C-alpha cells in the first residue's frame, strides 16, 4: 500500500466557549489545517471522517455532515466515528486507510465536542456514557473512579506514590502554559497538585483532566499531493486495538492491553521501536493513565514509569518529552477532538512549528489516544522530514 502523509493540521483553542458552536469550532480548526498545508484546497478533499461523542447530546446523528457542510465541503462523503475519547484518533486512522488504499488522495480527519455549557450533572452523564454501564457505572463510578481503581492497583503493585501523579500534572501544566491553544494554560506547583480536593481516591482534581470545548482537523494525503505541500509528515505506522469495556472484565488492571497491542502494531508497521521515538502525545485523561501509557507504549519497563517521571526525561527538554502540548490535563479534553488534536501537535512538532514548546530535533513522534478506560486505543507513529 502507498504511503500516507499529514500535510496540514489545525485546531481551535480548547476551553469553555459559550459563544461558539461545534460547527464554528470545527470551522476554526479546518481553516487552520487548510492554511497550514499550502498546496491543498478544500475542493481537493475526497473524503471526511470525524469523531465526536454526539456533541454532548446536541447532535446524536449526522453531526459529521453537519460540520463538513458547514465548512463548505458540499457533497463530500463524511462519516462519524464513535469510539468515546478515541473517536478522532480512529478518524485519523480511517483517513489514513482511505489514502493508503487509493480510494482518496486527500482525506480530512477531525473531531469536535462542546462540553462546558451544560450543568455539571449533565456533563457527568456524558462523561459516563462510555463506561461499562450495567455493572461498572452502576457501582457509582465514572471514569475518575475506574482510573482511580487502576491507580490503586498500580500503587499496590509497584514502587509508586500519588506524588508521581502530581508530578505528571506539574509537567503537563508547565508545557500547556507554553501552548496558546491550551484550556488550562497555567503552571501549577507540586504543592498545588498534591493538595487539590479528592475526586476519586487516590486521584485528586489535579490528577484529572478538564472537559473542554474544541475541535481539531488533520489533512491526510497521498505522496503526490504531499510533495506539493509546505510540510509533510509521513504516517509511518498505525495501530489500533479493542479491549473489554469494563475494567473488571480485563486480565490486568495495571496495563491497558489495547494500548499495548495498538503500539506494537504501529511500531511494526513503521519498522521503528520505542527507542526511535523523540516525543509522544499520550492520553493522560488521568495522571495514572500517563504512567500506564509509558509502559504500554514501551517507553519504559513495567513498573518503571514512576522512575521515568522522577528522572525528568519526559519533561520538555528531557530525553523523551511526553505531552509537549500540555496533554489532556492542561491543553484540555474535548472528547471527540482529542485524538485528532494529538496529531495536530505531532504535526506541529515535526514541522518545527511548535513555538515555545518545540521539541528540539524532533523527527519521530507518537500519538496515543484511548477511548474510555481502554476499550479502544489507537497509536500513530509519525515521521518528519520524509519528503
Amino acid at each position, binding site marked *: 500500500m502507498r504511503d500516507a502523509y499529514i500535510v496540514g493540521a489545525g485546531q481551535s483553542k480548547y476551553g469553555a466557549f459559550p459563544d461558539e458552536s461545534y460547527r464554528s469550532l470545527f470551522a476554526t480548526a479546518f481553516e487552520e489545517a487548510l492554511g497550514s498545508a499550502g498546496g491543498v484546497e478544500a475542493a481537493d478533499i475526497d473524503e471526511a471522517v470525524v469523531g465526536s461523542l454526539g456533541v454532548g447530546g446536541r447532535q446524536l446523528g449526522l453531526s459529521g455532515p453537519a460540520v463538513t457542510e458547514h465548512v463548505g465541503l458540499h457533497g463530500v462523503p463524511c462519516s462519524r466515528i464513535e469510539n468515546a475519547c478515541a473517536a478522532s484518533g480512529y478518524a485519523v486512522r480511517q483517513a489514513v486507510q482511505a489514502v493508503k488504499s487509493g480510494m482518496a488522495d486527500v482525506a480530512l480527519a477531525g473531531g469536535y465536542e462542546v462540553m462546558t455549557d*451544560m*450543568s*455539571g*450533572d*449533565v456533563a*457527568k*452523564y456524558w462523561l*459516563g*456514557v462510555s463506561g461499562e*454501564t*450495567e*455493572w*461498572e*457505572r*452502576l*457501582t*457509582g*463510578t*465514572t471514569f*475518575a*473512579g475506574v482510573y*482511580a*481503581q*487502576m*491507580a*490503586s*492497583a498500580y500503587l*499496590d503493585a509497584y514502587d509508586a506514590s500519588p506524588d508521581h501523579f502530581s508530578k505528571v500534572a506539574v509537567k503537563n501544566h508547565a508545557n500547556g502554559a507554553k501552548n496558546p491553544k491550551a484550556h488550562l494554560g497555567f503552571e501549577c506547583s507540586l504543592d498545588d497538585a498534591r493538595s487539590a*480536593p*479528592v*475526586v*476519586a*481516591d*487516590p*486521584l485528586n482534581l489535579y490528577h484529572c483532566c478538564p472537559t473542554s470545548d474544541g475541535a481539531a482537523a488533520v489533512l491526510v494525503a497521498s505522496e503526490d499531493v504531499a510533495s506539493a505541500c509546505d510540510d509533510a509528515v509521513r504516517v509511518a505506522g498505525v495501530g489500533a486495538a479493542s479491549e*473489554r469495556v*469494563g*475494567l*473488571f*472484565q480485563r*486480565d490486568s*488492571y495495571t496495563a491497558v492491553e489495547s494500548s499495548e497491542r495498538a503500539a506494537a502494531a504501529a511500531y511494526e508497521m513503521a519498522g521503528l521501536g520505542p527507542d526511535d521515538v523523540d516525543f509522544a502525545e499520550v492520553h493522560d485523561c488521568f495522571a495514572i493513565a500517563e504512567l500506564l501509557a509509558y509502559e504500554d507504549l514501551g517507553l519504559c519497563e513495567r513498573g518503571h514509569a514512576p522512575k521515568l517521571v522522577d528522572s525528568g526525561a519526559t519533561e520538555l527538554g528531557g530525553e523523551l518529552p511526553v505531552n509537549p502540548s500540555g496533554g489532556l490535563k492542561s491543553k484540555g479534553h474535548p472528547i471527540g477532538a482529542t485524538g485528532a488534536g494529538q496529531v495536530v501537535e505531532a504535526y506541529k512538532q515535526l514541522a518545527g512549528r511548535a513555538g515555545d514548546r518545540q521539541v528540539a530535533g524532533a523527527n519521530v513522534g507518537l500519538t496515543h489516544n484511548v477511548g474510555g478506560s481502554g476499550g479502544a486505543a489507537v497509536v500513530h507513529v509519525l515521521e518528519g522530514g520524509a519528503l
Partner: protein
Amino acid sequence: MSADGPTRTTLGIAGVGAYVPRLYLPASAYREAWGNGGAPGVERVAVADADEDTLTMATEAGQRALRAAGVDAGDIDHLALATTTPPNDEEESAVRLASLLGVGPSVPTRQFSGSTRAGAVALAATSEATQNVGDGASSPALVVVADSPRGAPESDEAAGAGAGAAALVLAEDGPLVVDAVGEFGDPAPGTRFREFGSAETESIGVTQYERDAYTRAVAGAVEALGVDAAELDPDAVALTAPDGKLPYRAANALGVEPARIAAGSVVSRTGDAGAAGPFLGLASALDSAGDAGGDESDGQSPATSVLLVGYGGGAGATALVLSTGVSDAASAASATSATSAVPVEAALDGDVELTYAEALRRRGTITGEEPAGGGAYVSVPAWKRTIPQRHRLVAGECTECGALSFPPEGACAECGALAEYDDVTLPGTGTVEAATAIGQGGAPPEFVEQQQRAGSFPVAVVAFDGPGGEGGEADGRAVSAPAQVVHSPAGTPAIGDRVGAVPRRIYEQEGVVRYGFKVVPIAARR
C-alpha cells in the same frame, strides 16, 4: 410419639435471624437537637443507611435465619413477609424478597401489612397454613418481619422511629411451636395510623386514650388465648413497642413480671421497629437464653415459652404462645424434654453513632433527589435480565473450558468461546483487587442523592470466590465484578482485603428501586 391415626404436624421455629442497621442515633443527640423530648425508654434508635430499606433488612434477617437453621433457601416452601413500610405501597415486596433470598418461584409468598401487628399475624397465618394433617413430610417455611417507621420530624413518632428486621425459619424439627393464637380487635381510631399516600406515621396524641387502646387490645388478645398468662409464666413477653414504656403498662393487665417484658424487648436499643419489634425481642430472648443456658441449672431448657403479642393501631392485637410443648393435654407429657435451644443469628446492636444532622441526611429528610441531566439509562427490562446476578451472584461456568464469567454472557473471557454457560452461584465472599472512594463531585448523577445522604463511598473491583470458597484458590477459580463497599471504616479498602456481599438498594430510577449486591469488609461484618 404414637404412629396410630393421622398425626397433626405443626412446624416449629428452627432458626431465628435478626438484623438491625449498624447506624444509630443516641437519644442524647435527639435531645440536644430538640432541646427536650425523645421517646420514653429509648436509649438509641437504629437508622437505616441511605441504601437500606425494609426489603434489604428483610433479606439480611432472612439470610441469618436460614444460616441459623441450617436450611437452604431453595428448600423453603412458604414465604411470608410482614411490614408496615414496604418500599412501595403497591407491588409485592415478598416476590423480590424471595428472589433476593433464593427462594423458588413457585413457592407461595404472602405479604402482610397495614398494621404493626402484621408480623404476629404473619406468624399465626404461616403456622396455620403449613400445618400438615397426615403423614406427609412438611417443608420449611420462612417468616420475615421488617419495618422502618417514620414520623414527621417534630413528632413523637419520629423521635422513637427505629428500624430492624427479624426472620423465623419454621421446620418440622423446630423446637418452639406456635401453641396458641389469640386475637382481639376493638375500634380505637387515631391511635397509630398513616394516611393514604403518606410516609409518616402519626397519632392524634390523646395520651390516655392511646395507652388504654394498647393495653386493652394486648390484654384482650392474650385473654383470647384461653390460657392464663400468669399461669403460663413465659420466659419472655415480646410486645409491639412504640416506645420503651408502653409495653410495661401492659404488664399489670397481663399479670406478668416486668422482667419478663424486659426479657422480650430490645426497643431501648433499636427504637420503634414497628411490626418487627416483638420479633427482635423474641430473637433477643432466645439468644440471651441460649447464651445464659450454661449458667442455668442442669437439664433446664432455655426459653421454653415466649408470649408474643403484635399490636396495631386502630386497634387490634394478635397473641401467640410459643412453647416447646403442645397445648393438647394428651401429648403434652411426651413433648417436653426433648427440646433444645433455637439457634439464633442476630445483629441487634449498632456500632456507628450518628449526629442528628447525619441521621436526617441518611433518612433523606433534608436531601434532594436525583439531579436533572439524566443518569445512565439501564432499562427496567435490561435490569430484570440481570436479577439472578444482582440478587444471588449467579455466575456462569463456560461449558468449553470451565472458567467463570460474570455476568455470564458473551464470549468466555478465558477461552474466547461463544459457548453456553452453566449457572454457578457464588458464595459471595471475595478479595479486593482495585479500589477507590468517590469524593464529592465524582459520582454519576444517579448516585448524587446517595452521596448527599451518606457521603463519599468506596467502590472496589472484587475477585469473587468461585463455588469452592475462599481465595478462589480452593478450586482455582475466581471471577471479578465491581461493587460498592458499605461500611469501610478506613475509607478506601486496601487491595487484598476480604469482603462479603450484602443486599442493598443500588439506585432508583423511574420510581423503580434497583436492588443488588454491595460488599462489606469481612473484618467489619456483623
